[in-house]
C-alpha cells in the first residue's frame, strides 16, 4: 500500500509543471463560456461532464453563434477522436486492472494526463502500482481544471496573455518527448509526425493530429524493419 501511495503522489508531482499552462487555459474557458451565453452552472458542468479543453473551447464558440445541438455533438466528438489513440496506447498497461479502475482512468484520459502517465509506463522500473501514478496525474489535472474553470466563471479573472504561460504546455511536452527519442525509428516517427502536423494544420477539428500521428507511427514501423 505504501508503494501505491508513493506512486500516487509521484504522479501528482509530475503533473504540476503542466498545470502552469492548464490553469490559465481553464480560466479563459470559464470567461469565454459566460460570454457565449452559458450560465455559470452550465459552464462548470461542462468541465466536469465533457472534461476536454479543446472540445469545450470549440463548443462554447459554437454555442455563441447558435449552432444546432447535433452539429455541436459531432464537432466535439471529432475533436476528441484523438483520445482513441491514447486509449490504445495505455490499454496494454491497464489490462489487468478491474473495471472500476478502467472506468476512472478512462474518464481522466486527457492529453495532459496521457503524456505524463505513458512516459511513466515506459520507464524501466517494475512497479506494480503505476496505475496509482496515472490516477495521481489525472486527478491533479482534473482538480485544477475544475478550479480554474470556477475562477474564470465566478471571478472573471484571467492571466495576462503577455505572460505566455500557455507555452509551458509545449515545453512540458518537449521535456517528455526528447528523452524518449532513443533510436532511429523513434526519431523518424517524431520528425515525420511533426512535419505532417504542420502540413495538415489547415484541417478542421484537430484532425491534423490524427493524420500526423498515424503517419508518424507508419514511418516508425517502416524504419524499424530496415
Amino acid at each position, binding site marked *: 500500500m505504501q508503494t501505491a501511495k508513493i506512486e500516487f503522489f509521484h504522479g501528482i508531482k509530475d503533473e504540476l509543471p503542466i498545470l502552469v499552462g492548464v490553469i490559465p487555459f481553464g480560466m479563459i474557458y470559464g470567461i469565454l463560456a459566460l460570454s457565449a451565453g452559458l450560465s455559470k452552472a452550465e459552464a462548470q458542468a461542462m468541465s466536469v461532464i465533457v472534461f476536454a479543453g479543446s472540445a469545450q473551447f470549440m463548443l462554447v464558440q459554437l454555442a455563441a453563434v447558435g449552432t444546432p445541438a447535433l452539429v455541436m455533438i459531432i464537432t466535439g466528438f471529432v475533436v476528441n477522436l484523438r483520445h482513441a489513440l491514447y486509449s490504445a496506447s495505455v490499454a496494454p498497461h491497464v489490462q489487468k486492472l478491474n473495471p472500476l479502475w478502467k472506468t476512472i482512468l478512462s474518464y481522466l484520459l486527457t492529453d495532459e494526463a496521457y503524456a505524463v502517465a505513458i512516459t511513466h509506463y515506459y520507464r524501466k522500473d517494475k512497479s506494480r502500482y503505476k496505475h496509482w501514478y496515472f490516477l495521481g496525474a489525472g486527478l491533479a489535472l482534473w482538480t485544477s481544471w475544475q478550479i480554474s474553470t470556477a475562477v474564470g466563471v465566478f471571478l472573471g479573472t484571467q492571466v495576462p496573455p503577455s505572460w505566455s504561460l500557455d507555452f509551458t504546455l*509545449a515545453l512540458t511536452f*518537449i521535456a517528455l518527448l526528447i528523452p524518449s527519442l532513443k533510436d532511429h525509428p523513434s526519431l523518424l516517427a517524431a520528425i515525420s*509526425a511533426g512535419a505532417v502536423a504542420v502540413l495538415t494544420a489547415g484541417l478542421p477539428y484537430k484532425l491534423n493530429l490524427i493524420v500526423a500521428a498515424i503517419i508518424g507511427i507508419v514511418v516508425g514501423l517502416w524504419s524499424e524493419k530496415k
Partner: protein
Amino acid sequence: MNAIWLTMFILGILTFGIRLSFIVILDRWQAPPIIQRSLRFVPIAVLSAIIVPELVMPGGILNISPTNLRLLTGIVAMLVAWKTKNIVWTIVAGMGVLLVLQYFF
C-alpha cells in the same frame, strides 16, 4: 432540459466512450503483432504532432525565421531537455528564454 445540457451529456458519454474504447477492445481481442509494435510510437508521434505546430506556427501562421521567438525558445528547450532529461529545468529555461526574448524584441 435545454439543448446545451443535452449536448453536454451526450458529448460527455461519447468522449468517455472514445477514451474507454481500446482499453476494452484490446482486452478481448488479441491484436496482431504489428499493432502491438506500433503502440510504442503513439506517444512519440502525438507529442511531436502537438509540439511542432506550436513552435513553427504560433498564432496559426507559419514562421520559420529568427523573428519567431517561440521557435528559438523551443530549440533551446529541446537542448535542455536532452541534456537534463528534467521537466522543471526545461520549463524554467524555456520560459526564462521566452520572456527575455519577448522583453527585448
